[in-house]
Structure formats: structure tokens, C-alpha cells
């Protein structure tokens, strides 16, 4: 079920109302059933894949907690490998297969051709990682295994964050799922504000921009450089608004019932460098990689060469997590490279060392611009269908200086994008629902009115599924 659909507008109030009407002991079942319904709106039979992952990790966690020593580790490995195997089969098998075939042709060895035709189950990477975080936390002794199969299933399947996160940790979500939630007007109000804000950002900003991005990426050779730059700029905001919008709605849905999900974004385009960008972008994923991969590799408490390797491997894996395509791997690698490069040149861009406030602000401003430009260009790899396409888009920026068509952008698209940028900047390190608390009733309701009107009247009529659904 899509958040920006009629079905969801009916589903959400019913589920939330029933949640508070039902006694606490039945709520887990209600939410689990609702989550199943939510998931089965996509491809119903894929719920069994989810069930396999749930059963594996549920049983593994109990065994891990019961045993120690080598056995304990063995159960962890079995759990991680089996969970990842499901991910591999559905997401990476064809990619692996294609590359092995290519390699076999080049190297001259025999590799049998396999043709597997699967539709990637929606949100597989998200709930796989959420499931893994639970097993790892149990292994590390930070989390007791959940004995209640229903509640554990709900932890993996909790509908607001089931398909595109935030990827939660058991210490946050699992604990809350056991708590008795009472109706709170404030929670409901905050939840609805977030849903409204998320829908506005997705439907009015991201989807309207999306149409122009599609034009540019469909035929980069036929647009002039300025238009392509415009398209790249738009894509930076399309993907941000699309994913941020979804996360915000997810957080809002949970909030309405009293559950607090982690924030996934904090003004990423105001970051001073790539490191900070990743502290602000898709926080639930970047912290997952930090906690379970980067730290496991030794983090920064290693020799500098090893640290560089750690950073690159984490970013490459992060790219691979996004999709089974070389473009994603290169996208991650590019981020890793810039991260490393910035580390070695950080003295040049360290604004804090400037004693003069004005100069510091100017440097800070340019650092922000620099980071945004770098991220924007690296997004080409993320959006392109293959490496050749990415190269074509990139080169068209420099090649088409005097040729090509002009991208004609509707004024309302600019207005809504500008409005979003202003509001998002005003919200710096804050969240829309909390920010609204401090505004006067009239201002608050004027904003709600504008958003409701915008969502109904100015939403794109084109069908843009949430970009992160494919992961």
C-alpha cells in the first residue's frame, strides 16, 4: 500500500482508531494483521519470504541467547548467512550471474547461464537489515531475545517502516511494542502534522520535480548544459523529498499511535562535508553500517591505510545495499573516495578555525555549496540506468554548452521547491511537528491549509512510486 493513495487514507484512520479502542493485549495482533494487509497490497505471496526471514532470526536469537562460545557465534553466522541468502537470491543473483558470465567470456572459463526472473519483494533490504540488527544486538548482549513470536514479527513488519524504513533497532522499537500506549492528543496531532508535511513534500515537491528529471535523464544529449544542470539539481531534491517525505509519513503514522521512530534525515544538504552529509542523510542506514560493519572492521582505531580501506568498503557495501548494479557500487565508492579525500584535506575547509565570524560564515557557506555540488554530481550514478548512461549524462553537462533544448519548468514547481527549501532550512535540526508547537495557531493553520490545498490541487498527476521502494 502506498502512503499517497486513497487506500492508505482509509487504512490509516481505521488502524489508528482500532488501536486505541482495543485493549493493550490485543494490540500487537491488530498491528501485525494491519501490517500484513499493508504489505500484501503489493505482491501478496511475498509475505512468505518475510515470514522465512522472521522465523530464521527469531529462532536464531533465542538459540544465541541460550548458548555461549563458539556455538553462539555459529548461530549468529547461520542467521546472518540465511537472512542474507534470501536477500542475495532475490536482489543480487541476477547481477552476480550476469557479471560471472561476462567474466567467463573475458577469462575464457565456462560458467552456465542461469535465468531467474523475480520481482524484488518491496522493502526486502530494509526489513532484512532490521532483522539482522536484532540478531546482532542479541549476540552482542545488548538486547534480550524476544520470546513472543507475534511481537517479534511485528518488530520486523511494523507497517509504518516496513517497506522503506527507518531501519529500527530493537532497543528502540521492540521495547516500545511491549509498552502500553495511551491515547494522547499531542501524539496524534504531531503524527498528523508529520503525515501532512510528508505528503506535501512527496506529492507536491518531489513528484512535480520528477517529471523534469525524467525528461533530462531520458535524453541528456538533446538538452543544453544549463538544462542538464537544472535536471541534476532537481534530482538532488527529488530523491531527498521523495525519501524524506516517506520517512516523515512513516514517523508520523507511528507517532499517532505513540511510537517514536528514529529520524532519518536532518537537513542533509546543509552538510559541510561528505562525512556530515552521511550523518544527516538516511541516518538509520548510515548508523547501521557504522555500528555493524565499520566498527566491526575496526573503525578508525587502525592504521590509516586500513581506515581508508574500512571507509571504502563500508561505502561500497552501502552502494550495493541500494541496488544490484555497478552504478550503485560506483556511487558508494565515489562517496567513500570523497570522504577520504576530505579527511586528508580537512584543514583547508575547516571553517571553525577562522576567528573572523564573517569569514567563517562565508567559508561555511561555500563548504555547504561544495558538498551539495559533489553530492549532486554523484547522484548521477544513482539515477542513471547503467554506467554508460551515467557517463553520457555527466559528459552532456560539459558537451552541450552551445547545443540542445532548454528545459521549460513550470513556475509552480519552482515556487514549491523554493518553499520547501526555505521551510527545511528554517527547520534546521528540528522536526516539523515540534517546530509547529512554537507557532501561533493562525500561522500553524495557515500552513496546514496551504499544504492541504497544495496536496490536492498541485500534486503531480503522474505516477511516481517512492524511489526507495526498489531497494
Amino acid at each position: 500500500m502506498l502512503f499517497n493513495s486513497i487506500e492508505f487514507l482509509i487504512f490509516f484512520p481505521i488502524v489508528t482508531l482500532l488501536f486505541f479502542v482495543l485493549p493493550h493485549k490485543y494490540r500487537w495482533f491488530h498491528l501485525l494483521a494491519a501490517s500484513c494487509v499493508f504489505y500484501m497490497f503489493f505482491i501478496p505471496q511475498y509475505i512468505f519470504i518475510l515470514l522465512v526471514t522472521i522465523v530464521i532470526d527469531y529462532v536464531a536469537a533465542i538459540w544465541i541467547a541460550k548458548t555461549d562460545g563458539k556455538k553462539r557465534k555459529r548461530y549468529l553466522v547461520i542467521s546472518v548467512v540465511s537472512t542474507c541468502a534470501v536477500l542475495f537470491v532475490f536482489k543480487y543473483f541476477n547481477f552476480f550471474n550476469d557479471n560471472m558470465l561476462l567474466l567467463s567470456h573475458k577469462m575464457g572459463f565456462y560458467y552456465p547461464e542461469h535465468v531467474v526472473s523475480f520481482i524484488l519483494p518491496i522493502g526486502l533490504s530494509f526489513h532484512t537489515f532490521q532483522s539482522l540488527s536484532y540478531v546482532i544486538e542479541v549476540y552482542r548482549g545488548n538486547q534480550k531475545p524476544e520470546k513472543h513470536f507475534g511481537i517479534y514479527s511485528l518488530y520486523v513488519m511494523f507497517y509504518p517502516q516496513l517497506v522503506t524504513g527507518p531501519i529500527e533497532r530493537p532497543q528502540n522499537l521492540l521495547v516500545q511494542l511491549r509498552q502500553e500506549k495511551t491515547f494522547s492528543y499531542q501524539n496524534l496531532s504531531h503524527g498528523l502534522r508529520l503525515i501532512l508535511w510528508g505528503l506535501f513534500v512527496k506529492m507536491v515537491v518531489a513528484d512535480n520535480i520528477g517529471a523534469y528529471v525524467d525528461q533530462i535523464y531520458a535524453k541528456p544529449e538533446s538538452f543544453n548544459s544549463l538544462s542538464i544542470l537544472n535536471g541534476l539539481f532537481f534530482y538532488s531534491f527529488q530523491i531527498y523529498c521523495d525519501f524524506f517525505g516517506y520517512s516523515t509519513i512513516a514517523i508520523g503514522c507511528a507517532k499517532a499511535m505513540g511510537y517514536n521512530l528514529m529520524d532519518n534525515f536532518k537537513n542533509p544538504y546543509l552538510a559541510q562535508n561528505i562525512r556530515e552529509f552521511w550523518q544527516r542523510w538516511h541516518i538509520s542506514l548510515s548508523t547501521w553500517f557504522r555500528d555493524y560493519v565499520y566498527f566491526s572492521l575496526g573503525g578508525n582505531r587502525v592504521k590509516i591505510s586500513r581506515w581508508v580501506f574500512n571507509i571504502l568498503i563500508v561505502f561500497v557495501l552501502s552502494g550495493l545495499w541500494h541496488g544490484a548494479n555497478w552504478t550503485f557500487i560506483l556511487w558508494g565508492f565515489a562517496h567513500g573516495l570523497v570522504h577520504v579525500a576530505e579527511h586528508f584535506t580537512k584543514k583547508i575547509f575547516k571553517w571553525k578555525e577562522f576567528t573572523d565570524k564573517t569569514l567563517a560564515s562565508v567559508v561555511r557557506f561555500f563548504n555547504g555549496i561544495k558538498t551539495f555540488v559533489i553530492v549532486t554530481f554523484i547522484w548521477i550514478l544513482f539515477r542513471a540506468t547503467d554506467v554508460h548512461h551515467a557517463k553520457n549524462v555527466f559528459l552532456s553537462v560539459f558537451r552541450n554548452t552551445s547545443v540542445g533544448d532548454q528545459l521549460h519548468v513550470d513556475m509552480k514547481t519552482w515556487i514549491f521547491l523554493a518553499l520547501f527549501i526555505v521551510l527545511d532550512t528554517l527547520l534546521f535540526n528540528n522536526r516539523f511537528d515540534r517546530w509547529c508547537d512554537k507557532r501561533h495557531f493562525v500561522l500553524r493553520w495557515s500552513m496546514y491549509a496551504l499544504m492541504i490545498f497544495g496536496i490536492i490541487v498541485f500534486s503531480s498527476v503522474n505516477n511516481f512510486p517512492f524511489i526507495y521502494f526498489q531497494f
Partner: protein
Amino acid sequence: MTTIKDILFRVLLVALLLVAFNFIYKAFFFEDDLQEHSGLINLVRTVVNDNCEIVYVGESSNNTARSDDADKRMISDFVADYFPTVKMGNITKPASHAGIYYELLRNIPEVSPVKTVVVTLNLRSFNAQWIYSDLETPLQKSIVLLKDRPALYNRFMLSFKGYDIKTNEEREKQFKHMWRHSPLLLRDDFPYENVAKWDKGTAEKGIRNADGSINYELTTLACHYIKGYGFSIDFSSNPRVTDFDNIVRLAEERNWNLVFNLMAENIQKADSLVGDDLVFLMRRNRDKLIERYQKNGVLVVDNLEAVEDEQFIDQNWTTEHYAEKGRRIIAANVAKALKGWYPTQFVDVAFIPDTISTKP
């Protein structure tokens, strides 16, 4: 108690805002949206603004001509020749069907010069592949703003994709399901129980050339004919029947004379490629439709077998695209039907089919 009051107050506020938004939207934004997303409305407006008394509604069968046609005018233009003193217009939207016609006709103002409506009744539009065609999503999208609901609500439905929106894969699943599960209701000893099996059987058997080899082109075409016409209309579940029923009801409400123009299909080709069984199905579906709608007071013009094979423009596909002679024959039949309502305005056009080139 305070919380309930707070909530009620806010719900009321939202309701008031929505009412106000509806006025604002209608006054400042609706027309632009109509032009951008539902340009079809202009076809209706043209008919109304031109004070047309007879409106011909159809798809590409109306305006498709063969390159060597001496007169490339539409069927509706040929019909108009018979009534030179009556203002006649057309609403022609390629690839559309009765569901779209209904919404368009509903948008003709209740008080208008329109007195007679001729609606294309395309037999093929009742088949599963057309009902669940990949063209359906854009068509449905184009009529959301034309629905009989508050303008803001229609825009809301458009924004939240509150219409029949499906991917091509989902549509394919739908019609393939219909092929597998809709009984053909043919003779007891007919070897296939549904279209899917009939199609597969024909493909496997193949149509043979004189030397005994399989003619793949003709086999593909035969299978296409089977999928196009191999169905038995179920009045209780076929959505197209509901669409035509809605048109009948609308015509009654508006006091319009209603004509269903049942289009010609290439019976000769169906017979030569597939055989009697398919022709039997086509004729039985025709008879069922005529019986149903004549009972409801609609004048049904039966053109099913009126056009011969060589007048069909697309020889390698099933379409209702006719060369000039074919269009003229259909127009003549429609005109004869309309004569009952316009006896004094009718002028017998000297139309001698044999004088028109029949060779493609």
C-alpha cells in the same frame, strides 16, 4: 472532554477549509487542470458550441481512412451528407470505449441543442484484452476531472490516483485470467473450454501453407482473432455492458434519441482463419447485444457483416478501420436509421458503392 472538543473543532475547521478550497479551485484552477489533464472536454464543448443536434460518438473507426481513399472524410461526415439541414457533430477519441463515451456525454449540459446521439458499439470492446488494455490507465485518468462530483474532490482523486490505475503487467494478468476462466459456451464437442486453450491449440496446430509448412503469419493472425472475438458476453459481469447501460439511462434522462452503431468486423477473415465457431460467437454476441438494447428502446444499427474483407484497412490485425466504401456503407446504414426521426430532412445521397475503388 476538552480533547474531544479540540478534535471536533479542528475537524470542523478542516471541513470548512475544504468547502472554501472547492470554491477557490473552481474559480481559479479548475479550467487549467481540465485543459491539461482532460482535454477531451473540448470535444464536448465544440459539439455544444456548434449547436449540433445530432452527435456521433466514436473511436478511430470514425476518422481512419485508407491512403488511396478519394474521400477521406469521417463516417460522421458521410452521415451528415444525408441531413444537410441538420447540424451534426462528432466526438471522436481513438482507442476509447463506452465508459469514456458515457463520461463525455454526461458532460453535455442538460439544456443543449443535442437531440440525437449515435454511439459506436464496438463488439471487440467487450473482450478481455480491450477491457484490461494498457490504454485503460491513461483513459481513466483523462476522465477523472469530468466525473459528476465536486471539482476539488475530482482533483483529490487525480492526485491520490483514485481511479483504475494499474501497471501493464497487472492488466495483462487480468485479461489472461479472463481468457482462462471465461467459458466460451460453444457446442458440446468443441475441443477448447476457454480462449487460452483455444489460442494455444491453434498456435500449436498452426495454419498450413499449400506445401504443408506452417504459415506463422496467418497462425498469429488467427490466434489474434480468437483472442479478439472468442468470448461470450456475460451481461452480469462485463463492465462494458454497464457502460452501455449507463448511456441508455443517460439518454432517457436527457430525452435523447439513442442509436447504437454496431460496427462491422471482418467476418470473412474470421471465418477463413478460424472457422465457423468464431463466427458463431461473433453473431451470437451481436444478437445478444441487439436484443438487450432494442428492448431498452435503443435503435441498434447492425453493421457487423456489412463490410467486406477487402474494405478493412488493417489486413494483419483486428481493427474497425474501413476504407471509403466501408465507411460509406456504415454511414448509409446509420443515416437510414436516423431517417425515422428526421424524415423531412433526409436527403438520399447518390451513393453507389461499386463506383468507389476497392483495391488497396
